[in-house]
């Protein structure tokens, strides 16, 4: 049994009629291409979700102020000052909530030396870092005494550091935010973008009380725009949402039948829903891929049957010089396998190109993994062997005499 000469014979046979060989491979090619795109899109969506959830902080619940009903007019969220720092502290008492922090966002110009940069400033408490799973890369966080004293201290996001300090170490330096000087306590680690593409590193954290009293002033003393809370676990998310609603209704003294004056959003669910759409798309591609691979396999079988009958005389010659049935079977099986594997190789390129196209047109992340390529090759090899076996066996079972006399 000599694989070497058989492989070169397979190459010759495939090269003898290139158009036919190409058309035969087309089915496998498209099937594998679709498999690659499908897995790339699916993997891209999964990565996006994982990254988004990781950057948001796991099990995150956001409480937005507002959605009250005033004389039947529903105002939407964020317009009415109903949430307070005390609400955040109260939420932390719940067993289903791991941590909670208030957020009062705003925008301000921040200045260091000759450089300045406009950024978003979040007034919050030290618990924020815990809720968002956002460690510092340098320095130390401000603490509860800073919040009580409304001191002028700040934690800078990576983008802000880059814009103002370059390579200089900002910890301990003094920057100006608005009109007042703030001491830089620490630097936040890199966080990346949110799902909707917002740059999270372009931010400055200051104590919520400082933001309320000294930076943004405030038409509503003591109120914040929203709260963020981390549920104790993924399983506790629904319970946490229920507990938080009950607690906040109680604290806001809302009577039975009155609408909530706040809205709780479960961001993980939102992200997962977005990913679900992508997964549906990739499943559809998967269906196309399976059908195409099936049709491609039948195409290979068909062409191999034609090839066997065209080359009956050649089979006879090989038998006459001493080829065993197994040699003939292996030779045709190798040819079918070569057809499907070369088709697969072209399909991988097609799929990678397709995935690139999808990522630029639809603007979703796609990830072509080595695993998906290996899987495609395994499937293609399976298709080649499965659909090549019948023709190869037919060739092997030809009677030498009949094959040799065949015209």
């Amino acid at each position, binding site marked *: 049994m000599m694989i070497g*000469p058989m492989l070169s014979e397979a190459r010759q046979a495939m090269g003898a009629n290139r158009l036919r060989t190409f058309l035969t491979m087309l089915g496998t090619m498209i099937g594998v291409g679709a498999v690659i795109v499908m897995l790339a899109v699916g993997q891209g969506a999964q990565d996006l979700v994982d990254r988004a959830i990781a950057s948001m902080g796991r099990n995150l619940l956001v409480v937005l102020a507002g959605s009250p009903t005033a004389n039947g007019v529903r105002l939407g969220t964020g317009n009415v000052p109903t949430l307070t720092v005390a609400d955040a502290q109260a939420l932390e008492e719940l067993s289903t909530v791991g941590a909670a922090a208030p957020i009062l966002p705003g925008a301000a110009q921040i200045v260091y030396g000759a450089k300045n940069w406009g950024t978003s400033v979040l007034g919050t408490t030290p618990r924020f870092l815990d809720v968002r799973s956002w460690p510092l890369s340098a320095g130390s966080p401000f603490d509860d005494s800073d919040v009580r004293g409304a001191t002028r201290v700040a934690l800078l996001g990576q983008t802000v550091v880059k814009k103002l300090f370059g390579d200089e170490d900002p910890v301990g330096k003094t920057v100006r935010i608005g009109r007042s000087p703030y001491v830089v306590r620490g630097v936040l680690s890199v966080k990346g973008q949110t799902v909707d593409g917002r740059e999270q590193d372009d931010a400055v954290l200051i104590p919520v009380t400082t933001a309320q009293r000294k930076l943004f002033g405030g038409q509503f003393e003591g109120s914040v725009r929203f709260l963020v809370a981390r549920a104790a676990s993924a399983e506790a998310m629904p319970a946490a949402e229920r507990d938080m609603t009950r607690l906040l209704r109680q604290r806001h003294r809302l009577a039975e039948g009155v609408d909530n004056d706040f809205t709780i959003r479960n961001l993980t669910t939102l992200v997962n829903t977005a990913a679900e759409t992508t997964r549906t798309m990739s499943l559809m591609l998967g269906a196309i891929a399976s059908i195409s691979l099936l049709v491609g396999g039948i195409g290979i079988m068909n062409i191999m049957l034609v090839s066997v009958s065209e080359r009956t005389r050649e089979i006879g010659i090989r038998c006459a010089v*001493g080829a065993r049935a197994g040699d003939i079977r292996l030779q045709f099986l190798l040819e079918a396998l070569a057809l499907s594997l070369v088709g697969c190789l072209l399909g991988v390129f097609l799929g990678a190109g397709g995935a690139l196209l999808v990522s630029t047109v639809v603007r979703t992340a796609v990830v072509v993994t080595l695993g998906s390529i290996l899987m495609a090759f395994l499937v293609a090899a399976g298709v080649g062997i499965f659909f090549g076996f019948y023709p190869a066996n037919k060739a092997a079972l030809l009677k030498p005499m009949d094959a040799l006399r065949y015209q």
Partner: protein
Amino acid sequence: MPAAPIIHLAHLGKRYETRAGAVPVLKDVNLEIGPAEFVAIMGPSGSGKSTLMSILGCLDAPSDGTYVLEGHDVGVLSRDQLADLRNRVIGFVFQGFNLLARANLLDNVALPLVYAGVATSERRLRARHMLERVGLGRYRASLPDQISGGQQQRVAIARALVNHPRLILADEPTGNLDTRTSQEIMGLFRQLNADEGITVVLVTHDGDVAAHAKRLVHLVDGRVAHDGPLLRRVAGGRPS
């Protein structure tokens, strides 16, 4: 005749089953061919000489009787054992040359060695040597359709010889060749037979070709009608 024959046929019969019933092609053929013999089988069309050749070459199985090739009873051998026998013991030369059109001459000659499991470098060496022996060494990279019919038949002979068979079976080897080329090819067979003691069995309907042999077997209607030495060449023109 030497004690151990290469070919021993006893009461050999062959029938083809058709819709109209069994058609006998060979009837009670008894034949013994020893080492280094040069036998020409002649006979009119339909006399069964090609069928006999197929059976001798283990490409077809007899319906009755026994065929012993080099001491092996062919009737009890498996398909693969027959393939090995064709590979090691027999070299075929056909009327239509039967070269692989897509393979170059060297690969064509080397084909039996592929199935004999000979390593690539040795395969090349032996095939090249054999091509040089039939005078076509410099064409080894050519394809069969780039050379003449006579040259193709020489390539086929090189292929038949490459695995050192003891028996060459030639079925109308000169049928597609002109007279001069035929004489060259027959000269090659005679040389192989005389110099190396290879047994040559030849089917032909051409008396001039048969005249190169040492022994003549005449088949008529599936039976051996005549079997005897051919002492002098050009003995009587066309026996058929």
